[in-house]
């Protein structure tokens, strides 16, 4: 009975996926817009004919690795579920985003390397899962072939956030869990992950991660670059800025800033979506955002099966969402490959802030500051005690 119900739900999701593609007719909308297209860190300029533009867009879109719902998984820990249909969309969006960051940073484009990258996210990792359960002690030296499998994500989520399979993820949940699992990946060798949950970009924090040392303010960082320090000691950094650009709907002024941010060469997509539906937003064309949709059910593939067939990890249907449908909660992502790249991103953010004034919603801070609480002042009038906040 459960199997029949599961098949019906999967069928419904896939039918809806195709109906959205058919009725929204993204290609027609793309053809109508004679403007530049922005997708990840690429700009497709409006200096060639529409077909050429579309072909370039399709090529980038289809080469971006797509993760979607999977069924026929081995039974997940802490539940009887064998599929993530209906609850795993943000989990899949997180996987897509991290995968894209790794692909971009390590410049992965050969078929063999791409296969190995997809295998890091294999949906069935039974060969090494028991090892993971036994050795899940935070040892950074252990590397797994599939550190970002749904099985390991579920275990790490339960351990850190106390959520069980079937519960919905927030963008911060999945990023936190993936960052924890990243230490088990061979790709953590030269890349670090920076997540700011407070809508802030703190330069010295990113610099510290990049140099594996205490970083300073902008002046310190410029001085470091001018001295021409050894670049082999620098790590790349995947940067995630979690933000919310409105309470119920997106603030139009803030969306203009997002549009500007999408033109940066360091831009690596947005974990966001429409209310309840998580989507991986790759770029924009006019008032529409280009996205990869995880709400399509496919059969789980294990490590060996991915070796033979990776076609289910490439999406052929370019989909667009109108800006008015966007959920205000999102995580902006960037990837900086070295110190110069980071400085360039910092200068771009400052420039955008200068141009947009109050509408620039990200807090740009050079260094982290701390506070202290002091119980020090009593109000004689009503005998209350006040806590002073000292910075």
């Amino acid at each position, binding site marked *: 009975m459960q199997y029949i119900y599961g098949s019906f739900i999967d069928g419904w999701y896939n039918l809806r996926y195709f109906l959205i593609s058919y009725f929204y007719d993204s290609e027609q909308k793309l053809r109508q817009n004679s403007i530049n297209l922005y997708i990840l860190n690429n700009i497709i300029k409006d200096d060639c004919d529409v077909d050429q533009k579309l072909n370039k867009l399709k090529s980038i879109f289809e080469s971006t690795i797509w993760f979607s719902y999977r069924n026929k998984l081995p039974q997940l820990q802490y539940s009887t579920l064998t599929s993530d249909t209906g609850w795993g969309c943000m989990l899949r969006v997180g996987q897509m985003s991290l995968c894209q960051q790794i692909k971009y940073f390590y410049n992965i484009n050969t078929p063999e390397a791409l296969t190995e990258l997809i295998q890091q996210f294999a949906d069935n990792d039974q060969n090494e899962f028991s090892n993971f359960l036994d050795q899940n002690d935070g040892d950074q030296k252990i590397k797994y072939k599939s550190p970002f499998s749904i099985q390991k994500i579920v275990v790490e989520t339960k351990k850190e956030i106390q959520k069980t399979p079937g519960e919905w993820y927030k963008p911060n949940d999945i990023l936190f869990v993936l960052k924890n699992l990243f230490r088990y990946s061979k790709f953590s060798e030269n890349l670090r992950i920076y997540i700011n949950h*407070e809508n*802030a970009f703190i330069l010295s924090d990113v610099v510290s991660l990049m140099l594996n040392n205490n970083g300073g303010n902008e002046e310190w960082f410029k001085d470091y670059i001018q001295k021409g320090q050894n670049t082999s000691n620098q790590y790349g950094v995947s940067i995630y800025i979690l933000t919310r650009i409105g309470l119920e709907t997106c603030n139009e002024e*803030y969306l203009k800033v997002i549009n500007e941010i999408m033109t940066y060469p360091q831009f690596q997509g947005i974990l966001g979506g429409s209310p309840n539906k998580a989507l991986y937003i790759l770029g924009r064309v006019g008032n529409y955002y280009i996205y990869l949709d995880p709400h399509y059910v496919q059969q789980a593939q294990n490590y060996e099966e991915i070796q033979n067939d990776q076609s289910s990890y490439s999406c052929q249907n370019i989909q667009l969402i109108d800006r008015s449908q966007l959920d205000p909660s999102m995580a902006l992502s960037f990837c900086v490959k070295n110190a110069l790249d980071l400085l360039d991103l910092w200068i771009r953010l400052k420039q955008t802030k200068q141009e947009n004034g109050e509408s620039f919603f990200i807090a740009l801070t050079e260094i982290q500051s701390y506070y202290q609480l002091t119980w020090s*002042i009593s109000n004689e009038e009503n005998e209350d005690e006040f806590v002073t906040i000292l910075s």
Partner: protein
Amino acid sequence: MQCENLKMSDNFVEKYPDRVHRSRLKFQDGTSIKKYLVSKSDHFYHFIQVIRDTLHLNKQESLYLFINNSGLIKAESQVDEIYQKFKSSDGFLRINLTEYPSFGNI
């Protein structure tokens, strides 16, 4: 959640001219928490940290402060600047606190 605070009483203006009196950090569910004093020139970053501590939020949880349902308070904003710009006629600055929603699809 709504936080009704940041009112300066006359008494406090005289006593502590450089400070904003954050009276009654009160939430819509009726929970009344502590009262805080912060320098006018200070930034919201510290107050956000205090709220996080008060609500016992984990480090991976996100918290955002909104004014008038659409304006996001940036951590770098100065307390007095926001207060002067957005305070109500009754002297209170009302702030909406919000977390992230979960994403799923049924």
